[in-house]
């Protein structure tokens, strides 16, 4: 069993050249940056807000903020990390407006005792995702990640879905590296446990379809 390989999207070598051209007023260079990262920002925004219209708003607001603050971007970090930080803040603001009764923060009280062993350790069927149609699987994954606190799912989506490094995630979320690692572990273990309801190996046969509520 080896390490997870992260997928990287798009070359970053000429990112700085695009940023510098955009700073000088070349809107086509900025449009290229939009084209390069709009899918990622949309995915991150929808993971955090869990709402498509909100995610659309976040994409627009994040890029407009990036455009209007481009002069302030110091070029010490990657443009993408800076953009992600803006988008995460916009998405969390949306969430706060919708759920004012609950504090939505990346610093919310999150248990970090890493030595608490998972309760559910039943094995999964081989290729468990193939028990479901694409649409069913997406529904399961979406419902499952919705149950995680925003602070957990944000770290998970940046690290494991978008493939940012631990350091980049820490920079984008203004968290320490140990805080990112701790949240990532909890997020991964919680998702694993919740998905187990759908993917568990059944006693009367591997290929049998789970109904998810046992």
């Amino acid at each position: 069993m080896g390490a997870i390989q992260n997928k990287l999207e798009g070359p970053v070598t000429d990112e700085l050249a695009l940023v510098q051209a955009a700073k000088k007023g070349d809107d086509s260079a900025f449009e290229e940056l939009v084209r390069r990262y709009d899918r990622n920002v949309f995915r991150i925004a929808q993971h955090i807000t869990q709402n498509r219209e909100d995610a659309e708003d976040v994409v627009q607001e994040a890029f407009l903020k990036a455009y209007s603050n481009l002069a302030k971007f110091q070029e010490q970090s990657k443009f993408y990390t800076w953009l992600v930080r803006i988008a995460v803040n916009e998405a969390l603001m949306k969430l706060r407006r919708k759920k004012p009764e609950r504090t939505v923060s990346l610093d919310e009280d999150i248990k970090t005792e890493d030595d608490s062993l998972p309760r559910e350790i039943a094995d999964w069927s081989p290729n468990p995702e193939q028990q479901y149609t694409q649409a069913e699987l997406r529904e399961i994954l979406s419902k499952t990640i919705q149950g995680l606190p925003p602070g957990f799912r944000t770290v998970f989506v940046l690290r494991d879905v978008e493939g940012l490094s631990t350091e980049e995630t820490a920079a984008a979320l203004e968290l320490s590296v140990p805080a990112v690692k701790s949240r990532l572990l909890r997020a991964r273990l919680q998702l694993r446990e919740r998905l187990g309801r759908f993917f568990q190996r059944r006693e009367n046969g591997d290929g049998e379809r789970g109904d998810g509520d046992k």
Partner: protein
Amino acid sequence: MKCSEFLHELTNYLDGVLDDTTKVELENHLSWCHNCYVVCDTTKKTIEIYRDSQLYELPDDLRTRLRSAIMSKCQQHKKRGPESV
């Protein structure tokens, strides 16, 4: 290595950033502790399933609409000047 120590190192192991000594100890633990093997294997699968899921893909028509809205807002911002946002 105890189960609690395995869990503590799980994220570093899956991310491939463990030092060689700890990695050998962890893999030795996995070779005899079935529960930890299952936790490790299914956590890895969890990550892979989410990563490969194409959850929340941006449809092409919406993508075009959003990009055009973004660029038009940027143009308006440019005309009005930097104090407008």
